């Protein structure tokens, strides 16, 4: 189901996006770095209207600080959260072991761009087979299932087996 369009994002985003698949978009920065962003519905947690958010640096190019990148991403997130029923998960890319950096950057972006009276971000880290993962949940404060969604997210993470000793809030 299409939940967000390129037109919605392009109405306010500094970098114009094009739709490359349903709920998935691509754009290029002033540095020439190509990104895709998108939302894919989750079927694992048993929560309705919850989507994974993905952001991919297509060519794994190194980048400079670019405030227009975070602005573009957060316009997409604001459009996504037009519906109070939606919630969002992310799991930081870890192909180069820089997942902690990505998580810190996303939390920084959230602190600078998100409307905190509207949204809650919960981040967690955990280990799985000697790798450290960073994940997060974002939902609207007026989501009718606010507490249940957080409890389910925490239940999923808390019940990862004992090989995840660093799982913490």
């Amino acid at each position, binding site marked *: 189901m299409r939940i967000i369009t390129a037109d919605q994002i*392009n109405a306010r985003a500094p970098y114009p996006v094009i739709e490359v698949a349903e709920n998935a978009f691509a754009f290029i920065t002033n540095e020439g770095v190509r990104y895709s962003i*998108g939302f894919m519905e989750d079927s*694992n947690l048993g929560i309705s209207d919850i989507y994974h958010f993905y952001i*991919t640096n297509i060519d794994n190019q190194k980048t400079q600080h670019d405030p227009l990148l975070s602005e573009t991403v957060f316009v997409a997130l604001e459009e996504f959260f037009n519906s109070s029923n939606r919630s969002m998960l992310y799991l930081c*890319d870890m192909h180069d072991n820089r997942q902690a950096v990505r998580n810190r950057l996303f939390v920084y972006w959230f602190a600078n761009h998100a409307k905190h009276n509207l949204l809650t971000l919960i981040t967690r880290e955990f280990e799985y087979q000697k790798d450290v993962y960073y994940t997060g949940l974002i939902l609207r404060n007026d989501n009718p299932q606010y507490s249940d969604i957080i409890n*389910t997210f925490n239940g999923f993470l808390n019940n990862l087996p004992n090989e995840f000793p660093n799982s913490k809030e």
Partner: protein
Amino acid sequence: MKTKWTSEESVAALKQMLAARLAWEEQMRSRVAKLNLSKQGQPA
């Protein structure tokens, strides 16, 4: 909504999430590579 989790269910869900992420990234790299994006947001 799922309220109780076993370790096996949590691990299975995590593995599904990781696999879905990889599949999505591969799909996006393939699709975006064909676009030859321009800075005006349209294929060049």
